[in-house]
């Protein structure tokens, strides 16, 4: 038996032992120990290299090659084992970390907007996208702006109909957001495209459909060549945006002191799509707003030349929109501020 053969047998033995140990290793530490035991400074394979001096010189290259081949093989086996073991350990860890996903989440920590405010933001979004400015006016208002400049002269029955709260003979709690129209027109800046949301007050006893304090959104467009057709198109667009594609609008002639011609606008019931249901009292239509072309008297009193400019105005009851949109059946809920109610929006 020459040295080469002897060496081969020895290497084969080392190989067998190493492979067996690698196979048995259950932890990364055990694998490290195997590496040290065979490939380390004092490892078995290193020992073989150290014994190369006993190998005849002419056989050394071949023996050296055999040793290197084995080293490479063991290195590869160790790496494979490490990879496999890592996967196994990760799988075990993941398995041990299963949680109960049905346990409760932390409480709802966000506050909620008031349904009126959310509905208003919707309306504002629609009109600002059409180029409307959102403006405001005083809630305590001169009688002159609340009535006279809106073509409602002293002692006009329309004044009585509005159940006005008076502060003095000349100062009232505004009964409508329409006075903002007059204030904006008086600034003289043209053209005007505005909406004016805000609180209004009327002497109505509190019940499921009435409140002495509620909100309106006034709209006003003044420019050269504004037509009733523009009013129709604008409000139809608004209704579709607010209540959904396919919403139809119906304009019915009506009367308001500060517009002429005037109209009330119905939309197809968004519950039954116009077929008639309990929600719309079987009519298929729901009234949502009043509107019309700005009355020439109003223009004249607000310093706008009615021969040059025309315009349209509309008024939307915000609570009405909110009640309809969220199917709230009692207006009093809006002013109680019970968090169980508010948290639904």
């Amino acid at each position, binding site marked *: 038996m020459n040295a080469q053969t002897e060496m081969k047998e020895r290497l084969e033995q080392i190989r067998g032992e190493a492979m067996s140990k690698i196979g048995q290793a259950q932890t990364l530490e055990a694998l490290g120990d195997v590496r040290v035991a065979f490939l380390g400074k004092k490892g078995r394979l290193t020992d073989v290299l150290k014994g190369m001096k006993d190998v005849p010189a002419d056989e050394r290259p071949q023996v050296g090659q055999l040793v290197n081949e084995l080293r490479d093989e063991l290195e590869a086996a160790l790496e494979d084992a490490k990879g496999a073991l890592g996967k196994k350990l990760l799988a075990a860890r993941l398995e041990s970390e299963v949680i109960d996903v049905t346990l409760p989440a932390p409480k709802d920590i966000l506050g909620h907007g008031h349904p*009126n405010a959310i509905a208003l933001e919707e309306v504002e979004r629609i009109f600002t996208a059409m180029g409307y400015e959102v403006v405001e006016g005083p809630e305590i208002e001169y009688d002159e702006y609340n009535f006279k400049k809106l073509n409602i002269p002293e002692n006009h*029955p329309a004044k009585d109909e509005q159940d006005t709260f008076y*502060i003095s003979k000349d100062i009232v709690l505004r009964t409508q957001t329409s006075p903002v129209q007059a204030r904006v027109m008086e600034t003289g800046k043209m053209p005007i495209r505005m909406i004016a949301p805000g609180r209004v007050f009327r002497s109505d006893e509190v019940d499921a459909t009435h409140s002495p304090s509620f909100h309106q959104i006034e709209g006003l467009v003044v420019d050269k060549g504004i037509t009733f057709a523009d009013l129709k198109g*604008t409000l139809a667009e608004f209704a579709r945006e607010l209540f959904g594609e396919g919403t139809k609008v119906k304009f*019915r002639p*009506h*009367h308001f002191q500060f517009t002429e011609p005037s109209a009330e606008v119905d939309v197809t019931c968004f519950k039954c799509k116009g077929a008639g249901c309990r929600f719309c009292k079987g009519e298929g239509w729901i009234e949502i707003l009043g509107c019309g072309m700005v009355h*020439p008297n109003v223009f004249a009193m607000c310093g706008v030349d009615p021969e040059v400019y025309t315009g349209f105005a509309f008024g939307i009851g915000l609570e009405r929109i909110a009640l309809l949109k969220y199917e709230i059946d009692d207006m009093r809920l809006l002013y*109680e501020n019970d968090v169980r109610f*508010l948290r639904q929006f």
Partner: protein
Amino acid sequence: MKTAYSWLKAYVPGLDVTPEEFRDGMTLSGTKVEGVTRLDKNLEKIVVGKIMQIDRHPDADKLIVCQVDVGGALQAGGGAHGHLLQIVTGAPNVKVGDCVPVVLAGGKVAGGHDGGPLPEGGIPIKAGKLRGVESFGMMCSIEELGSDRNYYPDAPEDGIYILPNDSKPGDDAVALLGLRDCVFEFEVTSNRVDCYSVIGIAREAAATFGKEFCPPVAGGHGVGGGGGGGGAQSVGAVMPAKAASHSTGANPAQAIHDLLKVRVDDTKLCPRYVARMATNIRLAPSPEWLQRRLAACGIRPINNIVDITNYVMEEYGQPMHAFDYDQLAGREIIVRTAKDGDTFQTLDGQVRNLDATMLMICDGEKEVGIAGIMGGENSKITDSVRTMVFEAACFDGTNIRLSAKKLGMRTDASGKFEKGLDPNNALEACNRACDLIALLDAGDVVEGAIDIYPHPVGEKTIPFHPDKINRLLGTDIEAGFMLDVFRSLGLKYIPDGKTPVGETSGEETAGGKTPGGKTTGSGDFAGAAGGATVASGGASKGDPGRGNADTNADANADTNADANADANASGGHVGAALGTVCIPTFRQDLECEADLAEEVARFYGYDKIPATLPSGAATTGGLSWKLRVEQLARRIAEHAGFSQSMTYSFESEKVFDRLRLPADAREREAVTIINPLGEDFKVMRTLPLGGMLTSLSTNYNRRNKDVRLYELANIYLPGSLPLTELPDERMQLTFGMYGAGDFYTLKGVIETLLRALGIPGRPAYDAQAGKPFLHPGRQAAVWLDVGSAGRAIDAGTTPQVAGSGDGAAAAGSKGMGGAAAGHGDPAKGAAAVGRICIGYLGEVHPETLDQYKIGDRAYVAVVDMPLLTQLATFDRIYRGLARYPSVNRDISMVAPKGTPVGDIEAVIARRGGRILESCELFDIYEGGQIPAGYKSVAYSIKFRASDRTLEDKEVQGVMEKILHGLREIGIELRG
């Protein structure tokens, strides 16, 4: 306004649409139909039956067995012997020969015999046996037919309704009873006074459905006294034979002027007063057709005289009053105002307190009625009336409205007068009443009318610009169509642009002529109220309700053709008026071209007008700066877990007591409502806590846990009281909470808000906020150092801007004794350099909590939004991220227990210089090795320079300065 379809059809004979089509068409042309009630609902197979034979029921004492002739209404079988039907009934009031409504087996009735609420589906009637005897139908009471004795006064109290003896068996009993009809309820807008009448609605209906309008024509009876016009023509056409034959005591030679004097003292409050008389009054029930029409309007028939006044009021929209002539002292009527302190008993028996603004109808000695509101007990018509006076007047609408309000009595009549009636309708209506007296044979009409009408109202004219109408509507409607609309509404068109009627037409109506009498022939499309075409009332048998038939022969079609020609000729001449439109006085609502445009639009159809979007210069739109800041504030509040609340702007004065405000607190000077809904809604809030605490209380009471609310709403601060100028409306952001969280939660929310609004610097907290509604040891005013920016801050009427000088800040905080927006501070209205108070926060005082029945600690914060709006900015400038390391120093010190950590931080900030980056409190501790009265406080201080690595020596120097500064306020480093 309720009206029977049949009544409308009487004046629009061509009307042939279904009730539903009518409803939709009228609604779209502007007369909204709110309800449609079919009177024959659930009345099926109901015919006239004549009772031929009555036998006793063999087994029941209270039942009878009737053989009823129902004519040809029977099909084969079903218990019929020829035309006879066997019906068993318990009704006590039938006898052989009576005609009664009979519902056949398989038919339906509307209600039960007891007159309760009508079942939706009606009550089906089947053949059956009553105590062993077969019955093949049912005889009906008026209640079973869906009505009641109010509207059928001739119906027996308990029993079968008896039809006229000459009714034909087998005929439709429902039609015979006038129930083949339906009733519309209209919503009439306040400007359309003319539509509070059947005639007005009928005119609209004719125009809507393109049918001829044939109104009744009054004045057929004894209108001679006024002389001339339609009256003169009609004299010969009175029913002379009839009137004369029933005349019992009146001297036909006597005219009204010989019998009655009328004097109007105040022609401003009573622009027109018309009186006519009838004598030999024969009270009786009204005929069936008249009763049915009143019943449809919801008016109970009483007797012919009362019914006539009601009928005319419904038909013409002109309230009428009837006086007993024999009760009028001095045979005269005087219209004058009452005297302050007078009292008067109205015919409902109530005694009313009068004042000098109220218009009264008086006789020679006393008041007999409150004009336009209600007659007096002392002159009401009784069964013994022999001669009566009809009043048809026009009163000042405003005066009637104010009087009715003061008296607290709004009657049907006042409701009409207060809208401002057409004075030119009064004589017409009065004549109509007299026509009905004759027609109903209720008395003998006295010749002539007294008509006090010193300043007749004439017609207005409006220029006709078809192109302007089209430009306003965005349409391309032909002028001819527009003129058709005007004609159908009774507006006259003058094609040449001149104004032949107008100011002068008033004179023509003087002397009792009907309005527009003279112009009827020339340009009157209306046919309404046409005095020139009066025909005989005697010819009206076919339609008694319509009175005089045969009107409207002169609708002038040529005029329209002319206008069309003109319209076409003018081509595109924008601005040229194509003549004028004369507005009859019953359309007081039509005043300008926009009004004409509406008339065109509503009959053209709002639905046919195109839908376009405004053209013209684009506008950017968007929220105002104020609203953007408020929007962000809402977002921050909601992110912090606060939900948005809304409360009323007015509240009870008691809120001030609940908030423990001293008697002289400025917040008690609030804007007060003169006519509040009640004490709880009386003052406009000057601080926003009442609503918030009420909301918290509601939630607490309902056991809601961990409640956090905020509100963005105005408070109202008067400049001076009583108010002469509008108050300062200040938007307040108010937070309120109980449950999880404390004072520092709210403090954090405020600081988050300030950061989000781009407001630099840390606010200072002054524990001496002086809020009586907050815990004295747990409250703080929030101050911001705004430096020179303070000059630009407009604090409105609030005290929140304090001067920067030594005493000024203190004065400022002291002056805040009230709310965040407390008024009355020396710095009021002034802008100053220095610091401003933007609000306050704290724990609610236990006594205030008690007042609101909140059983838990609660916290509130109020921030003045107008100040934040001025300070806020959304501009941001990037500062480079730190590139050099920081140096940290932790220090632990012992401070007197009462020293606020804010003082320590102030020293660190002041002494730390430019290299100080931050300081964080990380421990605060009392007890243990710390001596009593002291506390241990530990801070982690971070230094950094942006341009170099700091050296130890430099940091050490700053630290020594800081420690030195702390020693100065009695704070030592812990050993």
